[in-house]
C-alpha cells in the first residue's frame, strides 16, 4: 500500500538512458491510441474531469528523460511524449512507480503528496480533478495493454505480475481486499 519513506522504486538509470535517444513520436502515437481505448471503455473518467476535460496536463516521471503531455480533449485524448518541461496547466511529477501506483489505486495521492514523493505545480484544482477521476475509474493498465493481445494475453499478464512482484512497481490494479 502506501510506500514506506524513500522506498518508491526508481526506474533503472541504465534503461532510462536508453530513452534519451529513442524517437518519441511513434511512442506518442501508440499511447494516444491506447488512451483512446481507455476513453471508450471508461467514459466516466472524462465526464468526471468536468470543467477540466480540455485542460492539458504534464505528467513528469522524474526518473525518465521525458514528460507525458496529456490533453483529455473532451474524451478523445491526445498523448505526447516530449523532452524538456512540456507545456500544460498542471504538472504532476514523481517517480514512474509513484504515478503508476496512483493510477492503480495502490497509493493514496494525498499521502504521496504529503511525503513529497509527488509534486504538483500549476493548477492544483485541475490536478486534483484528474487524480479523483482516475481513482474512480479503477484502471488496470496491464489489462488495458493485454486485452488486444489474443493468445499472448495470459502469458503477458503473468509477465507483468512477475515484474510487479520483483520491482515493487504497481502494474496492475490493486485489490483492496488484499491490502493488509
Amino acid at each position, binding site marked *: 500500500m502506501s510506500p514506506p519513506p524513500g522506498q518508491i522504486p526508481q526506474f533503472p538509470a541504465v534503461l532510462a538512458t536508453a530513452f534519451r535517444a529513442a524517437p518519441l513520436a511513434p511512442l506518442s502515437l501508440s499511447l494516444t491510441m491506447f488512451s483512446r481505448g481507455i476513453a471508450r471503455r471508461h467514459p466516466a473518467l472524462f465526464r468526471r474531469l468536468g470543467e477540466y476535460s480540455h485542460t492539458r496536463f504534464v505528467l513528469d516521471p522524474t526518473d525518465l528523460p521525458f514528460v507525458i503531455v496529456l490533453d483529455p480533449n473532451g474524451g478523445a485524448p491526445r498523448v505526447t511524449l516530449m523532452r524538456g518541461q512540456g507545456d500544460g496547466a498542471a504538472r504532476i511529477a514523481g517517480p514512474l512507480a509513484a504515478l503508476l501506483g496512483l493510477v492503480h489505486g495502490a*497509493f493514496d495521492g*494525498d*499521502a504521496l503528496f504529503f511525503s513529497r514523493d509527488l509534486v504538483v505545480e500549476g493548477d*492544483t484544482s485541475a490536478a486534483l480533478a484528474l487524480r*479523483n477521476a482516475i481513482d*474512480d475509474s479503477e484502471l488496470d493498465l496491464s489489462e488495458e495493454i493485454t486485452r488486444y493481445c489474443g493468445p499472448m494475453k495470459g502469458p503477458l499478464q503473468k509477465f507483468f505480475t512477475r515484474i510487479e512482484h520483483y520491482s515493487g512497481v504497481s502494474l496492475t490494479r490493486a485489490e*483492496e481486499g488484499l491490502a493488509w
Partner: protein
Amino acid sequence: MVMEIVCPAGTPASLRAAVTAGAHTIYCGFADETNARNFPGLNFDRSEMHEGIAFAHARGAKVLVAINTFPRAGDEALWHRAVADAESCGADAVILADLGLLDHAARHHPGLRRHLSVQAAASNADALNFYADTFGVKRVVLPRVLSVPEIAAINAETDVETEVFVYGGLCVMAEGRCSLSSYATGRSPNMNGVCSPASHVEYHDEGGVLDARLGGYTIHRVGKDQPAPYPTLCKGCFSAGDKTGHLFEDPVSLNAEQLIPQLQKAGVTALKIEGRQRSRSYVAQVVRNFRAAVDALDAGLPMPEGMLARLSEGQAMTTGAYKKTWR
C-alpha cells in the same frame, strides 16, 4: 453493540471499496454545491448515487447523503431537490446543517431520517435536544471542539445518537462557523462546500524551498526534505507578536483510534472518518483498520496497534480536542 463505522466516499469506486472493506455506513454527496466536499472530480450524479446505495444495501451497509452546505438565497430549490433525490435514491438518512433546510425536510420528507451535520456546530445537550425536538433529528455529528468527558456529559442528557470524528482532517475552528476561506479566496465551506480550495493554491519550489500559497497569502514554507502540507488556512505558519509558528494548529491530522473504548463508554453511537477527498486506497485502509478496532473492542480483545500514520497530513497525529490539554 458494535460501534458503527461511518466512512467517506468521494466516488463510486471509493464507496465500493469502503463497503468491501467492512464499513457499516458510507456517507457521500451529490456533485454540486449542496455538500461540504464540493471538490473537482468528486461526488455522485443521481444514477451513481442510486447504484451506490443499491450496492451498499445489497451488502448490508447504509448510505447517508450529506447535504450540508447552507443553501444560497434565491437558489434553495437546488438543495430541496437534493433532499428529494436522496430520498428517491433510497438513502438511509440525510445529513443537514441549515435551519431552513431542516425545516423543509421535516415538513416535506418526514419519513426520511435526518442527521445534524457537524456544520451546525451543536456543541452541548441543550442544542442537541433543541434540534431533536424541533426537527426530529435522530443523530448529531459533534463538532471537533469537545473533550471526551464533555461528550459523555452530552450523552447523559440526550436521547439523540451522537457521532464523532475519529480520523482524518481536523478542523480547529467550530465547523460551519468559519469564514477564513472566503476571506482569503471568496470560496467558503458554508456557501460553496470548499475550504482553502485547490483553485486558489499555488506552490513555488525554489532551490528546494517550497512555498504554499492560498489566494496569494503564504501559508507554509518548508525545506527540501520536510513534509509538504496542503495550505489549509488554520494550519498555516504565521507570526504574531514575537512568535512565529503554527499559531492555530499544527499540520496534523486527527487519530482517535486509541480513544475508541473511552468514546464507547461516553455513549457515542458512531465513529466517523473524514476524507471524501481521499483515494479509494486510503478509504479501504482506514476502514479496515477501524473495523478491526471496533470488532476487537466488541469481542473484549485489546485494541490493535495503529497502522495509519503514513496516510496522514504532514504525517503527524493528534487526538485533538478529545484530550482537554489541546485547548
